[in-house]
Structure formats: C-alpha cells, structure tokens
C-alpha cells in the first residue's frame, strides 16, 4: 500500500468532533469501512488518520517514563514525604509513579529517602542489583545526596559513591512537590530529552557522562549490504571499545526533524532491518 505521509497533527481520532455534522460524517465513514465499502484513496486516508506512527524506542520510552514503579523502600524522615507523595493531596498517580512495589524485582525506580549509613549501603546496593533493567535512582534530600548534616563516621557522604544516581532532589526533607518535580525530570530523561541543568547555564554541552540520545530517540537502523551514508543515520551497532570511545569524534547530533526525515527515508527503503536494540539510557551499574 502506498502510504500517504502527512503530518498527523490535528488528525488524531481522539480529537473531539467540532460539530454534530462532523461526528456524523465520521460515523458514516466508519460504517463504510466496516462494510468494506471504503476503497482506494479513501481507505488509505481513513487508515492513515487512525494510525499513529512513531519509532519503537520512543513508544517504549514513553511507556516506561509514564509507568515508573518505585520500590517500597524508606530510609528515614524523607520517607514520610515520599509516602505522602502518593496521597490524594499530592497524587503522583497523575504521573504514573504511584504503584510502590513490594519487591525490587517489580520496581524500576529506587528512591533513596534518607541518610544512608555505611551498614545500609550494601543492602541498598543489593536491592538496586535485584531490580531489573531499565532502572533509575532518585537521591532524595540532602543526606542521601551528600551526607547532609551527618558529617560523621557512620553515614555515607553521598549515595552516588556506591550506585549510579539519576536525579538529586535537594531539601531537608524535600516537600512532596519537590520529589514529584524530580520524578518529572527523570521522566524527561527517560523520554530522551534530559534537562541539562547547569550545563545549559554554562553552555557546557557535550560534557555529559552518558551519550545524549538524539531528540527522536535512538535510531537502530542500518542498511543491509551498504554502509550507512555518513551523517544521515547513525546506526548503533555493537558497542565501541573503550579506546574507540576516547578517540572517536562525537556523533553528529540530529535534531528532531532531521532524524524523522532520515527515519522516513530509511523506512521507504525496502532493504531495511533494525539492528539489535541499543543500550538503554537508564544507566547500567
């Protein structure tokens, strides 16, 4: 089928009909389609208007970011704020992060809500290791981020000494709104559009520890039998060796539209197959 490629904005079937007549037209079209009376260009247009296209990665990230399951794990007084975060007053269910799972096997977000004592650190590390990929960590409050007021022999001076932390939420303790704000920041990171924070302020782009995905998300496309044209589609093949990482120039960043175009260009080619899925954004240990 020759698919007509139009921008889908404004064509969503979920959009409210603007008038009763329009609703009637829609209903009749749907009836025709079900009867098999719709043919040719009409059928194409009908299908097109009811299908949303995107990349698998984006859909995946969208689903992941909007269904964060935190582990039921409180460390100290911050845990009180963490608990009230799911209450009706603050209601993090609005952002899909309200299901505190009782097992780390079912959770994908760990909130370090309190000071981490040196005796607790190996326990937290084990819980983190038991969580399935992809997984994210929010360090909540001053204590788990830096030791806070506990500058002593018993408390780890910053939880990122023993596990990768994605978001640091300041406060002592942070209010539930602050934690929800941290979760929203984490969502943006999961969607592949991380806030750059101080890097934006000091124009320190490109100094991230992790490779920044392009706006359209990772594009696992490569052409069979031909090397991809440079600068069009940056296929993510096998992971580069460490030496390559240090010597290779940074990948040319594709803005959203360029990447979309590149994707469509590649999709029109029949000889296209997706490569292996890229390593996810949410850091591995």
């Amino acid at each position, binding site marked *: 089928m020759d698919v007509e490629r139009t921008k889908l904005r404004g064509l969503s079937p979920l959009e409210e009909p603007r008038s009763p007549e329009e609703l009637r037209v829609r209903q009749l079209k749907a009836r025709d389609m079900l009867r098999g009376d719709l043919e040719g260009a009409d059928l194409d247009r009908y299908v097109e208007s009811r299908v949303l296209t995107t990349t698998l990665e984006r859909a995946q990230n969208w689903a992941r970011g909007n269904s964060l399951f935190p582990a039921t794990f409180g460390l100290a007084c911050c845990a009180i704020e963490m608990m009230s975060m799911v209450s009706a007053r603050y209601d993090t269910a609005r952002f899909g992060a309200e299901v505190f799972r009782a097992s780390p096997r079912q959770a994908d977000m760990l909130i370090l809500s309190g000071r981490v004592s040196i005796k607790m650190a190996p326990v937290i590390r084990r819980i983190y290791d038991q969580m399935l990929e992809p997984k994210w960590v929010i360090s909540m409050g001053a204590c788990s981020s830096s030791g806070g007021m*506990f500058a002593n*022999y018993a408390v780890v*001076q910053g939880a990122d000494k023993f596990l990768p932390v994605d978001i640091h939420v300041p406060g002592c303790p942070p209010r539930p709104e602050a934690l929800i704000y941290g979760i929203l920041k984490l969502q943006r990171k999961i969607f592949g559009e991380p806030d750059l924070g101080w890097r934006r302020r000091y124009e320190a782009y490109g100094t991230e520890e992790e490779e920044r995905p392009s706006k359209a998300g990772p594009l696992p496309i490569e052409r069979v039998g031909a090397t991809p044209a440079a600068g069009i589609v940056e296929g993510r093949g096998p992971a580069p060796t460490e030496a390559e990482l240090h010597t290779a120039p940074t990948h040319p960043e594709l803005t959203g539209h360029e990447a979309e175009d590149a994707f469509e260009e590649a999709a029109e080619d029949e000889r296209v197959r997706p490569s292996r899925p890229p390593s996810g954004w949410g850091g591995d240990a």
Partner: protein
Amino acid sequence: MPDAPGLELIAHEINGRHQGAVVGSTYEHGQAALLADKDRIREVLAHLRDSPGHEYRALTSLHAADYLPAEPRFAVHYELLNMARVERLRVKALVPDGGDGTMPELDSVVDLFPTADFQEREVYDFFGIHFRGHPDMRRILMPEDYVGHPQRRDFPVGGEPVIFTNTEDSVPGWTK
C-alpha cells in the same frame, strides 16, 4: 537517690565488707555516684543488688565515657534502680587505657544483670573496652569489619571537608 551523707554511708558500708572496692564518691547536681575499683566492680554491684536495705535490682543503663586526656581515661557507668523506693544510684568504674595497643578490660556483669548483655557489646563497639566473661563479645551496631572504635575522643569525626566561602582559605589543596 541517696543524699550526700547517705552516699557516704553506702560507700563506708561497702568498704567495710569489701575492703578498697569503693575508691570514692561524687555528689553533684543532686546525683549520687560511687567510684569503684574496676577490678572489683562485680563485688560492688552484687552487694548493691542483694544486700537488704539496698536491693538495687534493676540496671537501667550501662554506658561508657571517654575522659581523654584525663587519667584514668575511661569510665563505665552503671545506673542502678530500686523500683520499690524509686531510688537511683550511679556506679562508675574507672578504667585506664590498656596501653601498648591492648584493650582496657573489665569484668562483665551479664550474670548479675542480663540486660547488660547488649549494652556491654555497645560499649565494646564504640569505646573498645573488653568485658571479661561476656558470653558474646562482638560488635553490635557498627559493621563487623569496621576498624576502630568511633566514640573514642581520639577517633576522627569523619565526613568530608566542604568548601564554603568562609573556609576556602583553610581547606587544604584549595587556592583562590
């Protein structure tokens, strides 16, 4: 709580039965304390627990203090309570440092007061005072592989130096 003359009477009575077991007494801020010879602490506590007229049957707390640079350096405090009279008495065992890297030692009172079990472990954990005859002398709060006894006054506080604008001259390795 016995008053100051009562405390002297108690000290005199114990010294009459156990010569030299009580080395002194202090009465400050309305609180009475007997200073006991560390090697005879069991005699003192057993006497206070069992003899008629005293009957301090409860040990409400056992803890230690490091008085560095004073000598003897440590003291183990026993807080006794007579529940019938609601009367409290503190007994301090003065414990000098072991010297030459050895641990200061003291007799355990677990068989007299079973509650002393965990509290003596805590004192061992944080002050490094070994209790002879304790059934299970090991750390209770700090990790088992921890090195040092962190509540001693010569133990570093820990934490990490943080540079503020008012401390940037004093933090080593940091220049303006």
